[in-house]
Structure formats: structure tokens, C-alpha cells
């Protein structure tokens, strides 16, 4: 029960990052082609040192051109969706909020599909527009008598998600010459296809959006007790809400445009983090980002190996793990 200091925050985040690195190394080793720990260590060491490569070039190909990009994509998607979930939870004052459950992911997916055929840089922008529209819609529908009602909000989210999914299905079947199986896979959440946008740019946008939410971390702690109360404790409520609304939607759009709609990460990860480190958003935001990365890297490793050589959509794995957590939280709130 000591107050939060920069040192304690650093220790917690450092520990989480160390775990993430171990998990990434594990995921690099995992796959159809077995690579020994020694070989992997040598590969990485030589890549970092810039030395000549004595190992077969297929190994290099597999590790650096196939597995590593996919792992980096998992890190991006996991961190984005988890922080978006934590952000929506504070914005809507509802621990059950999640970009997927609220229909924000579907909104982003619809935007991305509508932008198919347009230049690839437009896809995330269209997804961003879709995400903003979806959460605005849920927010307005979820109000009752000027107050946000927890269950009305969830229902509004679920209905919005179903409606948007129906629209997506309609588009998928009517659009000519589309790879429907690929799109169905993408809708379930899929990390196998690489994005045409440079990973560096995606990471930059993600870090800016997470950083923006993080600047409001202390305010979010108070916003959880209600807008009125936060206002009287000195929080600039409209500004904080706008920052979180835009950033969380952007993060969702980012994740959806590269990996489709992966569900329940946004609820699973912040919940586990709260159990581990408490509900202080100053700790929650960075640890949730790293935790989300860990969860998706692991889930994708499972998706690749559990039924090899066939792949599962990673969204199926996160839903299998996350839906029970959602139900547990819902039951606990009802009791």
C-alpha cells in the first residue's frame, strides 16, 4: 500500500517488458520448421553484431522475414486493442467495455472494407472513421435520461456490432471477385497477411495514441467515479473524454486494419492487469500495452501450432479465453 513512485512504475514496466522479450524469443523458435535455441541465439547475435551468416539462409528467411514481422504485428495489435479497451472502460465507466463488444471493431472493419480498392494508406483512415462513428452511435444509444446506463450501453454495443457485421456480410457477398474465405478469416482476426503499410509507421501512430491516453491517466482514475465528481476534483472532463475517445478509436482502427476484428483482448488483458497491479491507470496503461502484446504473441503462437500446418484465426483463441472472463465479470456485477 505504498504510493506510486516513478521507480516502482519503472520496475513493474521493466519486468513486463522482460517477460515480453522472453515470449517473443519463444515465439521465434516456435513453428513448422524446428530451430534450436543455440541456432536462434546465433542468428540473433549475428544479426545484431552485423557479422557473416554461417547458417543456412532459409533459417534467416524464416526467422527474420516470416516469424519476426508477424510477431511484431502481434505486438502492435495486442497493445493497441488492450489499451483501447482500458480507455473505453474509463470513458464509458464500464469494466465490460471492449472495442469488439462495443461494435467499434466492426465499425472499423466496415470502414476498411469500404475502402478496399482505394490506396492502401486510406484503409486505416477509413477504419478510423468507422470506429469513431460506431462508438459515437453506441454512446448516444446507451444513454438513458441523460445518464450512461451500464447495461443499456452494452446492449447498444452488441446491437451495433451485429448490425455492422450484417452490413459487412452483405458487402462481402455482393462485392464482385472478393476472396470471401480470406475475408471471413480476416473478420475473425488474422495476423497471417502482412500489411502494405510500413511497420515503423504503424508503431509510431500506436505509440502516439497510447501516449496521448497516458497523459490523461491520473484524470481517468477520477473519471471512473463519474463525470460530476471528476469535474469537482479538477479534471477537465470534456478534454479528457475527447482525447480518450479519439485515441482509443484510432488504436482500434489501427489494429483492425492490419489484423481484422480480434475480440475480447480489450477486456481480458486490463482485467488480468487489474488483478496483478491494481486499477491505477498510471500503472494500468503501460502494463496493459505490454500485457496485450504478450497475450497476442502467445495466442498467435498457439494459432500457428495447435493444428499445424493449418492455422486457426487468432480471434478464435482470444474469444475462447476472453468470453469466459467477460461472463465472469458480468455475473459478478449482477450479484
Amino acid at each position, binding site marked *: 500500500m505504498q*504510493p506510486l513512485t516513478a521507480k516502482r512504475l519503472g520496475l513493474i514496466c521493466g519486468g513486463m517488458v522482460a517477460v515480453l522479450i522472453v515470449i517473443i524469443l519463444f515465439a521465434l523458435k516456435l513453428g513448422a520448421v524446428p530451430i534450436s535455441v543455440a541456432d536462434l541465439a546465433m542468428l540473433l547475435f549475428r544479426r545484431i553484431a552485423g557479422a557473416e551468416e554461417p547458417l543456412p539462409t532459409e533459417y534467416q528467411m524464416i526467422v527474420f522475414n516470416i516469424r519476426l514481422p508477424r510477431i511484431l504485428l502481434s505486438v502492435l495489435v495486442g497493445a493497441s486493442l488492450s489499451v483501447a479497451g482500458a480507455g473505453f472502460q474509463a470513458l464509458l465507466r464500464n469494466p465490460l467495455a471492449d472495442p469488439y463488444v462495443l461494435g467499434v471493431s466492426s465499425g472499423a472493419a466496415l470502414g476498411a472494407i469500404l475502402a478496399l480498392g482505394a490506396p492502401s494508406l486510406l484503409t486505416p483512415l477509413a477504419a478510423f472513421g468507422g470506429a469513431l462513428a460506431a462508438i459515437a452511435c453506441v454512446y448516444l444509444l446507451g444513454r438513458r435520461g441523460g445518464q450512461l446506463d451500464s447495461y443499456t450501453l452494452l446492449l447498444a454495443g452488441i446491437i451495433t456490432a451485429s448490425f455492422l457485421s450484417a452490413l459487412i456480410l452483405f458487402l462481402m457477398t455482393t462485392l464482385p471477385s472478393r476472396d470471401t474465405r480470406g475475408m471471413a478469416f480476416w473478420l475473425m482476426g488474422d495476423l497471417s497477411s502482412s500489411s502494405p503499410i510500413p511497420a515503423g509507421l504503424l508503431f509510431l501512430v500506436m505509440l502516439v495514441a497510447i501516449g496521448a491516453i497516458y497523459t490523461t491517466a491520473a*484524470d481517468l482514475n477520477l473519471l471512473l*467515479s463519474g463525470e460530476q465528481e471528476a469535474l469537482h*476534483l479538477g479534471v477537465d472532463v470534456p478534454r479528457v473524454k475527447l482525447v480518450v475517445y479519439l485515441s482509443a478509436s484510432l488504436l482500434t482502427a489501427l489494429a483492425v486494419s492490419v489484423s481484422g476484428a480480434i475480440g475480447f483482448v480489450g477486456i481480458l488483458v486490463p482485467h488480468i492487469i487489474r488483478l496483478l497491479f491494481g486499477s491505477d491507470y*498510471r500503472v494500468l496503461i503501460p502494463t496493459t500495452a505490454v500485457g496485450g502484446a504478450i497475450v497476442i504473441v502467445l495466442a498467435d503462437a498457439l494459432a500457428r501450432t495447435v493444428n499445424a500446418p493449418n492455422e486457426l484465426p487468432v480471434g478464435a483463441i482470444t474469444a475462447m479465453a476472453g468470453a469466459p472472463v467477460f461472463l465472469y465479470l458480468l455475473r459478478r456485477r449482477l450479484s
Partner: protein
Amino acid sequence: MNPPPGTDMFVHDSTGIDRVGPGEVRLLLELASYAYHARDRAAPLFTLEATSLSAHQRQLVAILGANASGKSTLLRLMAGALAPLSGRVQLDGFEVSKLDPRTRAQRIALVQQESLLLFPVRVWEYVMQGRHPYGRGLRFETEEDAKVVESALAQVGALHLKPRWMHEISGGEKQRVVLARALAQQPLLLLLDEPTLHLDIGAQVDLLRQLRWLAEANRYTVVVVTHELNLAAEFADHVVLMHRGKSLRVGSPAEVYDRDLLEQVFGAALEVETGADGTPRVRVRGRLPSQA
């Protein structure tokens, strides 16, 4: 020297010790009004008519009235959560609704009836929230913050609760912790919306005695919305009697506690007695068969 209208109302002290001129009025409401609308151009659902009052530091003001009489609206005007439709609401000469939230929270603390907690919070963390308007960025707690939190908890006699969870402590204990958070804001003006609501009579007396003492020790101006007529008479310097969106009378309890007025406001047969010290007492005027 002629004080502006409305400011001289509370400037009367028989001892003359605390006598202060109109320039030192801390809280000033001048013909402040407000109206709630369902929609922009619809007729107002509720109107608070122009209300004037003023108070100095170390004074305790009680707002009395039946339900839906405008007590809470008046309090929210003072808190700066609502901007008056007309008139002025000022704290030390600043219009409160125009202060930025941070500055306002350093000067005004509001204790509301219900505080909903979404995730479990420890008592000390909760009180630490009162330090929010003083920090920047991530607001790592300073030693000064920790000291202020300790002394706030000590002032309400809840220091022993510090490591406990908010959801584990009793209603009366929670009331004190919520008050401690307001104290941690180190405000000039302390506003309380029906703080006595769920307390037994002993706890109510304790709370008001405490507020009286805090007003004195910390030089607060305290404003309490309450239904407890007799407690208000005992502890308040001034009372505001609200009825259907109108402040019927503002003044000392002896001036305001008029039988006809109270009966009109509360719609019950009442009797007002005056004690030896000049404090009025309100009694229900019942026909008790045994006394008939």
C-alpha cells in the same frame, strides 16, 4: 460606506470580534438564478429564482427546504458546476463557473450524496484523489501530498482506516473518508449535499460539530444542504430557506425560523420554541390524545 445590495446581509456580529467589511465577503451570490430546460427552446422544467446571500470565512451556512425546492441547484451554482442564468456567484471576487476546473477544485470542495466506485480503492488512495488539482502529469504523490492526506484523515478521526478498502468500511466511516478527501483539496469553500442523510442522530451531531470545528480551524466557509432543522439551528450561522425554487428568507436561524413560514414550506403543523440561548427549536405540533 454603502455596501452593494445583498452583501450586508450577514455582516452583523454582536461581539464585533469577527466583524468584517463587505470587501472580505468570501462567497457572494447576487441575484443568481438558474433554469433547467428539457430542450433548448422548451419551457423550463425547474426555475431557481434570483437568490442573494453572502458568507465569510469561518461561517457555516445551512440550506433548508423541502424536496425539489432548489437546494441542490443552489449548491451546484456555488460549486461552479452550473453557470447562473443571470446574476453573479463569486468566490473571493472570482465568478466560480468561469474558473478552470483545476483552480476551482483548489478553492471549492463538494461532498455529494453518493459516490460510485467501479474498481476497489483503498481509503488513502481515495483521499489522495483530493490532491489531484495540485499535481501535474502523472501526479506521483509527493511527501507533502502524503502529509495532507494524513492530516485530513486525522481531522475527521479516520486515520486508522487509512489502509482499508473503501467498500469494506461502514456507511458512517465512509462519510468521514469522503469528507477527508474534500479536506485534502484544501479548499476555501466546503459544500456538502445532504451529508446527514444516512446517519443516525449521534453521527449527525458529530458531523455538524465537526464541520463547525473545521470552519473555525481551517477558516473554511461551509455550506450544508440538510433536512435537519434543529441541527441547522444549533450549528449554522445563517440559514437559507428554500421553497419552490425561491429563497424565502435568508438570515440567522432565529430570524428565519418563523412558524408560519416553516409550516408553509414543509406542509406540516409545526411549533417553534426559542431556547434560553436564543436558538430556535422546531417541534411537530401533534394532538397527543393522552395530553388532551
